[in-house]
């Protein structure tokens, strides 16, 4: 066991893991965190805590994750290389592990021009692959980046990364995930899947590289609320492709939300059959209350109590 986190145990004991995502408040209202945690309680093995997602200022992921730990749920702290240099990131890792946070997802993060601090100076001292390698070195060799100093204490983190099978150049995507595997990632959460064919093709390339044995792949799923949302995401969220069939289906449905949930559950069942997919990561942006229903309809309840 690398970190002994609940998520790691789920994978280790062969369960089909389920994680979701929680957006910290745009302020310090702990109640927001409490409410979202209560929605997810018992439905997921761990919950991602985003780090100023789309470069919009929110409570920091380390603080929110610590709160989630206090609230009795296991967080997956996301860390973006956009905002902190290697000094800040390594010291945050010390703090996070001390506060009982066991999972991390290393991301490059959205460009600051997408958010509400367009004039900020971005950092990008490291990129996601280098961050993964850094956390692994801190955990396995107890060394800081640069390798001079020994770390007092253990940095037991279950390291996660992201992957976007729908980005270009497609042939390189699997190779890049293999690169992250070599860098020391333990699990991968993909971008939300709508183009199932392309995802299957990507998974095949992953299997050909043998990456699925070294790394736990989690399929990213996002329920659509309405046809409008589908069209919006298809148009201006780059890296996401939504087949016309799904958009039409959403448009025809009387209640978009219900249809979205139905599609979502179908997708979960479909990805479960794909060899190498060890879990699902359900991202319901500001719709955390639906996670319970989705997980239940997908037959993934009750979540295993692991020790």
């Amino acid at each position: 066991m690398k970190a002994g986190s609940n998520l790691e145990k789920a994978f280790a004991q062969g369960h089909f893991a389920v994680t979701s995502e929680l957006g910290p408040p745009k302020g310090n209202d702990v109640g927001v965190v409490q409410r979202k945690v209560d929605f997810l309680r018992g439905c997921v093995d761990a919950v991602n805590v985003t780090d100023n997602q789309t470069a919009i200022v929110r409570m920091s992921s380390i603080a929110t994750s610590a709160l989630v730990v206090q609230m009795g749920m296991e967080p997956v702290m996301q860390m973006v290389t956009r905002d902190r240099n290697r000094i800040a990131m390594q010291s945050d890792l010390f703090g996070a592990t001390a506060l009982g946070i066991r999972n991390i997802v290393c991301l490059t993060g959205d460009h600051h021009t997408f958010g509400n601090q367009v004039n900020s100076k971005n950092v990008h001292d490291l990129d996601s692959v280098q961050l993964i390698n850094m956390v692994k070195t801190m955990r396995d060799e107890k060394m800081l980046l640069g390798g001079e100093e020994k770390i007092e204490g253990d940095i037991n983190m279950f390291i996660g990364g992201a992957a976007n099978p729908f980005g270009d150049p497609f042939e390189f995507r699997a190779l890049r995930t293999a690169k992250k595997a070599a860098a020391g990632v333990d699990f991968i959460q993909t971008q939300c899947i709508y183009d199932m064919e392309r995802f299957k093709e990507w998974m095949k390339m992953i299997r050909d590289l043998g990456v699925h044995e070294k790394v736990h792949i989690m399929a990213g799923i996002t329920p659509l609320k309405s046809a409008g949302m589908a069209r919006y995401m298809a148009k201006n969220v780059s890296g996401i492709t939504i087949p016309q069939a799904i958009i039409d289906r959403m448009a025809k449905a009387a209640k978009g939300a219900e249809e979205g949930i139905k599609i979502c559950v179908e997708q979960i069942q479909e990805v479960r059959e794909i060899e190498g997919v060890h879990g699902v990561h359900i991202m319901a942006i500001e719709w955390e209350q639906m996670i319970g229903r989705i997980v239940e309809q997908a037959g993934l309840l009750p979540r295993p109590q692991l020790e």
Partner: protein
Amino acid sequence: MIKAEQKSIEKLLEYLAPYGKIMLAGCGACVTVCQAGGEKDVALLASALRMARQKTGQPLEILEVTPARQCEPEFALELADPIGKVEAVLSVSCGVGVQTLARHFPATMIFPGVNTKFLGETVAHGVWEERCQACGDCLLEKTAGICPIARCAKQLLNGPCGGSSQGKCEIKQETDCAWQLIYDRSKSLGRLHRLTEMIPAKRWGVQSRDSGPRRIVREDLKV
């Protein structure tokens, strides 16, 4: 070469408001090439400034000068006499020129006339694109001749990020994704295997500007 863009005329008029006689100093090198501060641009800007001030009733006398370069001490010192006769200087050379004049003429205010942008390539007539960040430790060998530090919005060394689609960067539709270019060129050079090895964290603090303002000394030439 260094690429720059002239500041707005309003901003320049705002700088020059308190003065009646100025020198407008161009530069015969980089800013001439990118049409921001060459002799023609100096003349153009000078007439615009004069006409603007004519309208307001306080005419502006402009001494137009374009030495070969503004970043050599000797060229700057050649402007000593004319600068003695003006109240301020508006230099439309890059930031280096403005600061060279500022160093050599402590008693004269030197205003920047352009915004120095980047070290870039002329992609087409009138189109210039950033190519180099002068990071001090060139890694173009690793990326088949395309620099992610200058041409990737997130300066990724192990790109592309999730947002690259149809070869374009998610941030600006007109910008090519550097890593798409790197991938394509590596593939055509048969060097794809290089992209599968992780490029380690860059030593920013030692060679890039993060190590503070940098200096090159060639002992063999210095004497």
